[in-house]
């Protein structure tokens, strides 16, 4: 049986581990130069820092995952720096993955595949977010982790979610200058959602600890605040924001990290025909799957953040569980005891995740009410006002009742990123303009290639 695993983050590593244990030799693909995924992304060769310094409290887990990763590589068909740009599901025939590595394309058949494609930053466009010096939260973290450099000398962190505090804290620890941490969620929302849960208490404690450290260092930390606009001409010079009591404030900064948690990378699942559903608590479209990771498409399994945000620990469990499901479905002898244990723990984690989603709600209003002049789609330079115009019944093309039609009219989400960055905010703006629920405007459909695919070099004259 030909098995393919896409992604070598926590989910992919644990999936491959179980496949190899069962005697399979999967094709294992990641577009990154090495495995580890987002959280345990490895620094480039020649860059030496201890796991503790790189991964903080997760240092032990990172080291364990990297050890497994390295041990697995010789036992599988390991293909780093390889992008899966298209997938054709295997309904009756075997499925196919289209890959590209350094310009060379290849097609791989599979009987079963596990997609562990992970997550990417979720941002809300705010005025000025396209200025040089503004980056996504996770990207700011990766700059620090893999290059050891901060994104600026006086960095403002704006957003919400555990990553906001963590990254600000990591910056502080590395000696980078921090202008402020502006959290859009009030403290009481987090308290209300998390207190009373065992893991919730730990998260609160971690958060409180980060905040205390940041405050102790004299850094401005504000919760329940709202960003208004990033200021600057050809770089960031400041941020205007509103505090919890509604008073407008301003601060100086030369760089800004923006982020409201992460969103799943679902394009491959979408292309494969996996049905999607809107998960209201996280305000995200996620591929449908059962608790073990089976999708409705035969032979296709989903695990980790790409199947719905759960964090790194859940990703590890879900990866292993999906591999066991694959074995069960293929009529192989799977480790039933492990499957049962994983099911129990994943179930418990789901409760905690729901609490986290309540603790760090996506500020849909902030997106929906962005000023008309805000560049909403940065790839195509489409402003929020143009999208609102496309929602008007008196527009020359009539009103766009859903987001793909709005894309057709305005080019929103048509650029390099295919709406992965602006899609959620675009839906919020459109739904608000139409006066309907965000689920009614739908989501941007995926199209191949999931990431840009370069045109080939010309074949030299005279080649047969």
């Amino acid at each position: 049986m030909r098995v393919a695993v896409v992604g070598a983050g926590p989910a992919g590593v644990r999936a491959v581990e179980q496949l190899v244990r069962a005697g399979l030799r999967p094709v294992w693909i990641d577009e990154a130069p090495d495995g580890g995924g987002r959280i345990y992304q490895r620094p480039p060769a020649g860059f030496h820092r201890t796991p503790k310094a790189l991964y903080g409290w997760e240092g032990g887990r990172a080291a364990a995952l990297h050890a497994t990763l390295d041990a697995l590589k010789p036992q599988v068909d390991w293909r780093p720096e390889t992008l899966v740009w298209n997938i054709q599901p295997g309904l009756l025939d075997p499925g196919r993955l289209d890959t590209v590595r350094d310009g060379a394309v290849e097609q791989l058949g599979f009987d079963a595949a596990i997609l562990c494609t992970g997550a990417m930053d979720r941002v809300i466009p705010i005025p000025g977010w396209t200025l040089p010096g503004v980056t996504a939260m996770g990207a700011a973290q990766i700059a620090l982790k893999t290059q050891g450099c901060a994104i600026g000398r006086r960095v403002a962190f704006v957003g919400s979610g555990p990553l906001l505090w963590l990254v600000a804290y990591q910056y502080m620890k590395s000696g980078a200058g921090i202008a402020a941490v502006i959290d859009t969620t009030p403290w009481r929302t987090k308290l209300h959602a998390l207190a009373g849960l065992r893991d919730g208490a730990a998260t609160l404690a971690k958060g409180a600890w980060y905040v205390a450290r940041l405050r102790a260092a004299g850094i401005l930390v504000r919760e329940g605040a709202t960003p208004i606009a990033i200021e600057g001409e050809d770089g960031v010079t400041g941020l205007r924001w509103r505090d919890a009591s509604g008073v407008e404030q301003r601060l100086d900064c030369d760089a800004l990290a923006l982020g409201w948690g992460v969103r799943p990378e679902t394009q491959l699942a979408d292309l494969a025909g996996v049905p999607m559903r809107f998960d209201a608590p996280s305000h995200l479209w996620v591929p449908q799957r059962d608790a073990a990771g089976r999708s409705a498409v035969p032979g296709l399994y989903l695990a980790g953040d790409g199947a719905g945000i759960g964090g790194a620990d859940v990703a590890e469990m879900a990866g292993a569980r999906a591999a066991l499901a694959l074995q069960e479905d293929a009529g192989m002898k799977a480790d039933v005891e492990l499957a049962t244990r994983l099911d129990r723990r994943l179930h418990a984690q789901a409760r905690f995740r729901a609490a986290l989603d309540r603790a760090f709600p996506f500020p849909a209003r902030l997106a929906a009410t962005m000023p008309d002049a805000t560049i909403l789609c940065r790839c195509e330079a489409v402003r929020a006002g143009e999208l609102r115009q496309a929602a008007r019944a008196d527009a020359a093309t009539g009103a766009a009742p859903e987001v793909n039609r709005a894309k057709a009219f305005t080019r929103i989400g048509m650029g390099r990123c295919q709406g992965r960055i602006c899609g959620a905010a675009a839906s919020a703006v459109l739904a608000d303009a139409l006066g309907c629920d965000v689920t009614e405007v739908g989501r941007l459909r995926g199209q191949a290639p999931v990431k840009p695919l370069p045109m080939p070099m010309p074949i030299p004259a005279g080649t047969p």
Partner: protein
Amino acid sequence: MSGVVETEVLVIGGGGAGCSTALHLALRGAKVVLLERGLVGSQASGANYGGVRQQGRHPAELPIAKRSHAIWQDLPRLLGTDCEFVATGHLKLARSAADEADLVAYLDVARDYQLPVRFLDRATLHRDYPWLGASVVAASFAPEDGSANPRLLSPALAQAARAAGAAIREQIQVTACRHENGRFVVEAGDAVFHADTLVNTAGFWGGQVAEWFGEPVPVRPHTPNMGVTEPIPYFIRPNIGVAGGGIYLRQIPRGNVIFGGGRGTGDPAVPFSRATPEATLAAMRKAVEIVPSLAGVSVIRSWSGIDGMMPDGIPVVGPSSTTPGLFHAFGFSGHGFQLGPAIGAILSELVLDGRTDVPLEPLSIRRFQTTP
């Protein structure tokens, strides 16, 4: 909505052909209802390459194409938007002596139909378009042709039709039609429509409608494969085709290069269509052959759409052979985007005047009837 809706003309299908028909009928005061299964322009008319060309067309289509050309230029007045139509010219390339001979032969057709087309020999061509690949040996240039944004045309036609009084109903599928006591009875959703005249502009699915009236035609799904690159500095002004086909491309002023070639895949029963990686990769190779500087430019999206392909590659346009009051315009065989605007004008004449100046005999549905 349930109940019976009475109308003079009922149009099935809201692509370019149907929306234009609704507009032209409404402009002349007819009471018209258009029924569209999805959103207007969501099938071939919204997914196509956007080529607006007369050059290279079958002579049977040229009178329609010429009439359409006049309407394309008039869109701002008619619709309040130009649908991004720009007459950039269409440059048709030859890569062999045989292809060059085909281009030369077409010059006679063009002359017969007063279509301005200019022949460019190798030296002139490479002087005027220095970015063309060495494999190109000659070309013919049609200055009136160009391209437009397919995503805008049908919705804008539909919007203008609404303003003129037509009822444009979306998300409603026609499931059965018959002719009863001199009137058409059309079932769609949970409603029934009665109409004096029925217009079949259902694209590929027009074959199904024709079958309901006892005149089946051998229409097949046709799914051209499309792709688009990231924006690069604007340098390809004309819309580019090649003799023998296989690749066509154009650049829009904002920088993206749109290209087509080969076949995607699809299922008209869903309906659903998608580009295939094989076709996309092959088209990318061919694009680089004719414009070598595209090497390394990233393709960011691919797609396909479903048109109706007739065995002889030209559409069915004109009255039904079985049922008075029924008119067909479907099966545009991969090149009906340019024709859409004129199709509406012509059908409105057939419906309201019983005649049109445009010769339609070669496009009659009767050509597919096998005499028993």
